[in-house]
């Protein structure tokens, strides 16, 4: 449905419909009232350089088929790595057997929200250059070049460089009649410079801010998408300044947070908190629950009135952007927080009726053929303000504070209340102007206090898309890639810690 990109011929050449027919009919014959088949292929490439020398390079191709069934109101799931019609039928029967074996443990009859049937649908993400069409040595050469630029600078003792790329292809078919084929690509380039003070036995680091993105190799190889030249040129002097910067004074502080840092705070304190499965306890023993429980939907003040947060599966270049989810539900966009009030959840086809809404908003995904789809995060983004407020304008409103750039350490509790984040660099703000870096900064808050202290958001011109490849959830553990857009934002009176003091130094 999008652009000129087509799904790769080798994936299209798989006997998709034959495998679906074999699995779905075997499931029905074995007693399933519903079944779906997913063929899931993921190609990944990992390149790692240390001080410009190749440390690791691995290309991986994973493929398999998964069958999910409902038998007498109970889920059953089985998967296999062999794409063969006999294996597909057998895997379907195994899924039915799993459901029957464990049925005694099920107290909630599974019902699926209705969704239109999509026959022979296909979708491809928006990327220009397939990273798997680029020879590995060419990719390594770019990382060598970028590493070399940093290593050549004064004060840079070591450089780590990495590139992770992925191409994900799925074929989905269910007993309602949908059959959907999709392909998407993502890239994650990262460089980190290290300066070592050998005498003191200590060191300081700074990483590039280039975000992972649902684009192709074009986001890595040159300055078309990201200003690599500018970033690599500035990084050494920023690192040198940071290593000599004064240690921060802990206490309540006004913060202007750059999108390169704020995306991760949004991910942890809003993205996960508005997952319905967490809110009703499905992750209680592992990833955790959420303070944003269903009784608070539509009434809880999540943050200040300038806070508007949207979940979006259709966002251009978003890592969680897709045509349809792993339950055949078409991608959508919806509100999670409007004017500061909690108004929406992320849902799948089971959770929609439980919440009392008629349709899933399409958040069911698995990270491999060998994992069952679970409710996963859409691109959750903070909306910019209506006026053209720049980052400098926000800084101009602060008498004494800190401007935080780049993400680094993150941690949040199992109900999404208490969080602590650090960053790549921290600039002191004095009388509305930046006044050099400080170091050893962490900010710590409780989610609703933090968003309640949101004083202003930047305009559209400050809005940037950040994200991660490694969002973890569920048992067995699954990872997902997701993007978060946000403007620069001003928060008043947030607790800043001095991490040296936190460590007892």
């Amino acid at each position, binding site marked *: 449905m999008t652009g000129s990109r087509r799904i790769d011929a080798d994936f299209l050449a798989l006997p998709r419909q034959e495998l679906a027919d074999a699995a779905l009919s075997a499931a029905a014959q074995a007693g399933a009232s519903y079944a779906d088949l997913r063929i899931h292929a993921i190609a990944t490439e*990992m390149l*790692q350089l240390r001080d410009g020398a*190749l*440390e690791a*390079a*691995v290309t*991986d*191709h994973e*493929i*398999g088929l998964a069958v999910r069934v409902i038998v007498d109101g109970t*889920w*059953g*799931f*089985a*998967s*296999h*790595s*062999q*794409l063969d019609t006999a294996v597909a039928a057998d895997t379907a029967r195994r899924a039915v057997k*799993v459901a029957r*074996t*464990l049925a*005694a*443990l*099920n107290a*909630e009859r599974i019902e699926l929200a209705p969704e239109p049937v999509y026959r022979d649908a296909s979708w491809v993400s928006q990327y220009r250059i397939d990273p798997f069409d680029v*020879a*590995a*040595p060419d990719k*390594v050469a770019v990382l060598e070049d970028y590493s070399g630029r940093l290593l050549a600078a004064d004060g840079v003792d*070591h450089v780590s460089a990495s590139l992770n790329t992925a191409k994900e292809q799925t074929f989905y078919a269910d007993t309602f009649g949908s059959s959907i084929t999709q392909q998407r690509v993502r890239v994650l380039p990262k460089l980190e410079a290290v300066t*070592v003070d*050998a005498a*003191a*036995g*200590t*060191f300081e*680091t700074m990483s590039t801010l280039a975000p992972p993105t649902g684009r192709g190799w074009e986001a890595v190889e040159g300055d078309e998408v990201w200003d690599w030249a500018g970033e690599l040129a500035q990084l050494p002097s920023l690192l040198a300044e940071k290593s000599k910067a004064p240690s921060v004074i802990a206490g309540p502080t006004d913060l202007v947070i750059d999108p390169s840092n704020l995306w991760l705070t949004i991910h942890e304190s809003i993205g996960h908190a508005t997952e319905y499965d967490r809110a009703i*306890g*499905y*992750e209680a*023993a592992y990833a955790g629950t959420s*303070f944003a429980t269903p009784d608070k939907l539509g009434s809880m003040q999540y943050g200040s009135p300038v806070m508007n947060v949207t979940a979006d599966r259709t966002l251009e270049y978003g890592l969680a952007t897709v045509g349809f989810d792993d339950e055949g539900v078409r991608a959508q966009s919806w509100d999670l927080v409007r004017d500061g009030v909690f108004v929406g959840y992320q849902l799948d086809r089971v959770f929609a009726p439980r919440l009392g809404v008629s349709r899933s908003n399409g958040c069911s995904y698995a990270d491999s053929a*060998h*994992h069952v789809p679970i409710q996963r995060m859409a691109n959750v983004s903070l909306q910019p303000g209506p006026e053209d407020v720049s980052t400098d304008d926000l800084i101009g409103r602060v008498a004494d504070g800190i401007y935080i750039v780049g993400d680094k*350490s993150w*941690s949040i*509790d*199992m*109900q999404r*209340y*208490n969080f*602590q984040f650090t960053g790549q660099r921290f600039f002191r703000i004095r009388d509305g102007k930046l006044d050099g870096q400080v170091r050893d900064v*962490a900010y*710590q808050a409780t989610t609703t206090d933090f968003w309640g202290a949101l004083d202003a958001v930047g305009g559209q011109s400050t809005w940037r898309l950040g994200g991660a490849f490694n969002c973890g959830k*569920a*048992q*067995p553990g699954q990872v997902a890639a997701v993007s978060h857009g946000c403007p620069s934002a001003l928060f008043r009176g947030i607790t800043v810690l001095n*991490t040296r003091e*936190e460590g007892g130094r």
Partner: protein
Amino acid sequence: MIGAQQVVDLALAEASRLGRADETTVLVSDRVEATLRWANNTMTTNGESTSRTTTVISIMRQGDKARVGTVRSSSADPAVIADLVAASQLAAAVAPQARDTAPPLPGGAAPADWDAPTPGTGAEVFLGVAGELARGFGGLSGGGGLSGGGGLSGIGATLFGYARHVVETTFVATSGGLRRRWTQPTGSVEINAKHDGASAWVGTSTPDFVSVPMDSMLDQLGTRLSWSRRIVELPAGRYETIMPPSTVADMMIYLAWTMGGRGAQEGRTALAAPGGGTRVGEKLTSLPLTLYSDPGASGLECAPFVSTSSSSEQTSVFDNGMTIDRVDWIREGVINALAYPRAAAAEFDTPVAAGADNLLMTGGSKSLQDMIAGTERGLLLTTLWYIREVDPSVLLLTGLTRDGVYLVEDGEVTAAVNNFRFNESPLDLVRRATQAGVSEFTLPREWGDWATRAQMPSLRIPDFHMSSVSQAQ
């Protein structure tokens, strides 16, 4: 599927036929996983997965330099083997020189079980656990409790949790005739019980699900929930704290992951010493604490050889098949070893050290009960969660307490306390520990996805740093 051994033979034969690589290493891993998950007293997800991963590593040598090409696939189609080998050789041909080049390891006789079929598992392995759970889901609030006597019966708790069983057989073969095989069973059961705002957790690792102590686990949950009948709110601060084995495991596992030799030599980890060099030889504590990994550790057996598809600070593809011995990372309170693949060991003139897939710490003899009894006023933790690195230069980690912080007064648990966010370094915890308990098998909570084989003592920390209060239950 054809047998994994056949995949090995086909790949090595194809590598020889194409002839572009000087050496070829083939790794085949056959994995069967069964999982069962529950929440709110009902099953939520389940499944059985059968998968195979084949890795072909081609090495091309020029003098003492070498180039490497690594390609991995989970396709079970025998037709892809030739493609994999060709792709691997092509990747090696165009790769830059590897920095971790080491000579080939000698071949040897295949192990006696090389040709044996690979074992599996399935959802039926959970039937024993599931039976206990089903009764628990239905009968917790009335009579008919789970554990006969005390435990959870009558409390009316809601159960959440997860059981998994993975049986993975790994084959390592080189064109030089090296053959190694290992079957690794990995299993765990975790149960979280919630009642009236209180939350408690127990977990155990079990390689075979033969004798999972459901009765005593449920008893423990009942005891812990009963401790929560009195709640005491405490502010942030430094507290005398008893860290039980699971929490010690989570902190020590992070330390072990950081104990790469190269990074320390380069001055870019917390194991770098002031003035250059590493902290090996530094005495952390006068307690006789020894932190080690050992493939032969009783009850925690794991692969006694290296098997890796990618090189890192701690491991090298050139070392595939190399024997892993016991390594004492900390011996009698002194930092004793860092991880060095063969190439890095040669470069830095240090012993080769490869970590096994388990972690143990010894050095104390008191039971946890005795440690509680010997506490005038302090905190007893249950598990830690969301541990992340805040300052790598000192290995300062942050994280949360989870599912039970208890107040100990005059030698007894007297109440439950709110959760906290902590900021602590595992190195500093070892430095400041004043007492170690007896070493026990334990399930790390935070890192349990990757690390289930652990045996740890409890530690008494006189001034554990609770940085702030978490409202989470």
